[in-house]
C-alpha cells in the first residue's frame, strides 16, 4: 500500500535497519523485566530492601530509552510527529500522576 502513496512527512532512515539491533534490544528488555521481577520476588536476599525500588526504576528508565530509540525510531530524522506525540504523552502522564498523588 504505502509505496504507492506520496507522503510528505515520512521518517527517513539513511539505511535499512538491521534485525540484529532489534533482537538485541528486545532481549535486553526481556532480561531487565525478568530481573525486576526476580529482585522483587527474592526481596531482601539479592538486593537490600531499600534499594529495590530505585533499582527497578533504573531498569524501567533503561527500557523506556530502548523502546523510544530502537522501536519507535526517535533518533531518526523527520520524526517531528513522534516528538510531538511523545511530548504530549509525557504531559498527560505527568498531569495524571500529579493529579492522583497530590489531589
Amino acid at each position: 500500500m504505502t509505496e504507492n502513496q506520496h507522503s510528505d512527512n515520512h521518517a527517513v532512515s539513511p539505511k535499512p535497519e538491521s534485525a540484529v539491533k532489534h533482537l538485541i534490544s528486545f532481549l535486553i528488555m526481556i532480561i531487565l523485566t525478568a530481573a525486576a521481577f526476580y529482585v522483587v520476588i527474592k526481596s531482601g536476599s539479592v538486593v537490600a530492601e531499600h534499594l529495590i525500588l530505585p533499582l527497578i526504576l533504573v531498569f524501567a528508565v533503561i527500557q523506556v530509552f530502548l523502546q523510544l530509540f530502537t522501536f519507535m525510531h526517535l533518533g531518526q530524522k523527520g520524526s517531528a510527529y513522534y516528538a510531538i506525540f511523545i511530548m504530549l504523552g509525557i504531559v498527560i502522564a505527568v498531569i495524571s500522576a500529579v493529579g492522583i498523588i497530590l489531589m
Partner: protein
Amino acid sequence: MGTLIVLIVFALFLTAILTGGYNKTFLERVKNSKVWDWLTTVDHKKIGILYFLSGFFFFLVGGIEALFMRLQLVVPHNDLFVGDTFNELLTMHGTTMIFMAAMPMIFGLMNAVVPLQIGARDVAFPFVNALGFWLFFAGGLLMNLSWIFGGAPDAGWTSYTSLALNNYSPGPGVDFYVLGLQIAGIGTLIGGLNFMATIINLRAPGMTFLRMPMFTWTSFVTSTIILFAFPPLTVALLLLMFDRLFGSHFFDYTMGGSAVIWEHLFWIFGHPEVYIVILPAFGVMSEVISTFSRKRLFGYTSMVFATVLIAFLSFMVWVHHMFTVGLGPVSNSIFAVATMAIAVPTGIKVFNWLFTMWGGEIRFTTAMLFAIGFIPTFVMGGMTGVMLAAPPADFQYQDSYFVVAHFHYVLVGGTVMGLFAGAYYWWPKMFGKMLNETIGKIHFWTFLIGFHLTFFPQHFLGLFGMPRRVFTYQPGMGLDSLNLISTIGVVGMAIGTIAFLYNIYWSFKKAAPAPADPWDGRTLEWAISSPPPVYNFAQLPLVRGYDAWWMEKQAGNKSLPPAEPLGSIHMPSSSFIPILMALGFFIAGFGFIFRGDFVGAIIGLVLVIVCLFLRSFDRDHGYHIEPDEIEETNKGVQA
C-alpha cells in the same frame, strides 16, 4: 485433560476432512464464497460496514436493555426486573452502548469515509484494521454472552471497587466485564493508532493538514485521544483482573490497597472517552451542515483549533466525576474551572455551525434534520454539564437522575444523532443505495420527540431526589407521573429505531443504485462512484484547496485532477489471521473467566502467539491491479 485430548483429536479430524481429506473442492468453494470474503477482508470499506452494522446490532441490544429498565420504572413498586437483574441491565446498557455501540459505529464511519476524504487507497495498516474490528467483536460477544454464562456484570459501567471485587461481586459477572473490555480495548487502541498513521502519512498530494475535511480532523484528534486514554483503562482492568483472579490487593483497602485509585484510573480514561464518542459526531455535523447549507464551513480554522483544545482539556478534568469522593476543596476547584473551560471551545463550534447555516441555501434532508436537531439538544446537555461542573451544586446532583438526563442529552442528543446523520449522509457511499427520505423523516421526528419526552422529565426527577441505578421508588413522592412520561417517550425512540431498521431493509430491497454525488457534496469521497471501487482512486487526486471536490465543480471540472499517471495499483491480500487471532483472545477470555486451572486461557493465548508467528513470517505481499483492469471497471461504472 482427557476431554482436552478428545477435543483436539476431533478438531484435527474435522480439519482433515474439511481441508481436502475427503472433499477437495470444499476448500475452493469456501475461498470463493461471499462469507469467507467478508470474514477475511482487509478492505477499509467492508470493515467500515462490518463495524457499523455490528455496532448497530449492539445498539439494539443496549436499547432493549434500556427499554426493560424503563418498563420496570413505569409505575412505583413495579416488580418486573428487580434487584440484581436491574443492576445487570443498567451495567450492560451503559457498557454496551459506550463500548460496543457508539465506538464501533464511529469507527465504522471513520473506516468508510476517512480514507476517501484524504484521497487514500486504504488505511495505513489494512491487516491491523481487520484485527481491530475482530477484537472489538470478540470482546463485545464475550461480554454479552455473560447473560447466558452465569450472570451479567452488575457493578455499574464504571465498575467501582470495592463493589467490583470478589467479596462484593461474586460470580463471573465482573470478570466478563474486565475481559470483554480488555479485548475490545486492544481492538480500539490499534484502530486509533491505525487512523493516526493513515491521516499523517496517506493524504493525497496537496492535502495539507488545513485542507483536511472536518470529519477527518475530528477522526484524527479522536484517534489521538484513544491513544492516550485507553492505556489507563488497560492498566485499571489488568489490576482489577489480578485482584479478582489471582488474589492481589491493588483495590482492596483492607489489605493496604486503594479503592480510589480505580476511580482515578477509570476516569482518566473515562472522561476522554466521552470526547472520543462526541468529537466524530461534531465532525459529521460539520460536514452535513456545510453540505446542506451549500456553504463553506464557517470558521474552519477555529473549528480545528477548538477540536484540538477540547481534546487537550479532556485529559485534565477527570476529577469532576469524583467531586464527592472528598479529595478536598483545592482539587475540586481546579478541576471545576478546567471543566467549565471546555464550554468555550464547544461554544465556538456551536456558533460556527449556526453561522454556517446563516445565509446558506438550506436543504432539509434527513441528515440535515438530525444535524439541526442535534444543536439545541446538545446545547441543553452542555448547559447541564456546566451546572454539574460546580462542585457545591454537584453534591446535590450527584448520583441522581439529573446526571442521567445530562449524559443522555449529550450522548444520545450528540453522538447518536450524529451517527444517524452520518448514516443517512454516507449510506449511499457505503452501500451504493440511498435510504428513503420519507421513512428517514419519520425516523427523525419520532426519535427526537421520543428522546426529549424520555429524558427531559429526568432532569426534574433528579432534582426531586430520585437516585439513579435504583430499581424502584415509592408512590406519592411526586415521581410517578414524570416516570410515566419518561417511559412513554421510550416508545417514540423505539418507533424511530424500527423505522430506521425498515429503512435499511428498504434500501437493500427496493432502492435504486445511488449516484456518485447524491448530495452535491464538497469533499473527495463524492468524486468517486458509490460504492467506490476496491482501490478507491484509479489515480490519486491532486488537492487544490479546502473542499477540494466543490472547488473542482465550481471550476467546471467533471473529475478530480490526477496527481499521477495511471499505473498498476498495489493491494493488500485478504487474511484469515485477524479473525483467528480474535478467536484466540476470545477463548483466552473465556478461559480466564472460568478460572480453575486456566486451560482455556493457555490454549487461547497459544493460538494468539501462533497467529503472531504466522503473520510475522507471512510472505504474502499483496497483489497488483493492472491499468487495463482499472479502465474496464471505469467503463462499467460509466455505462
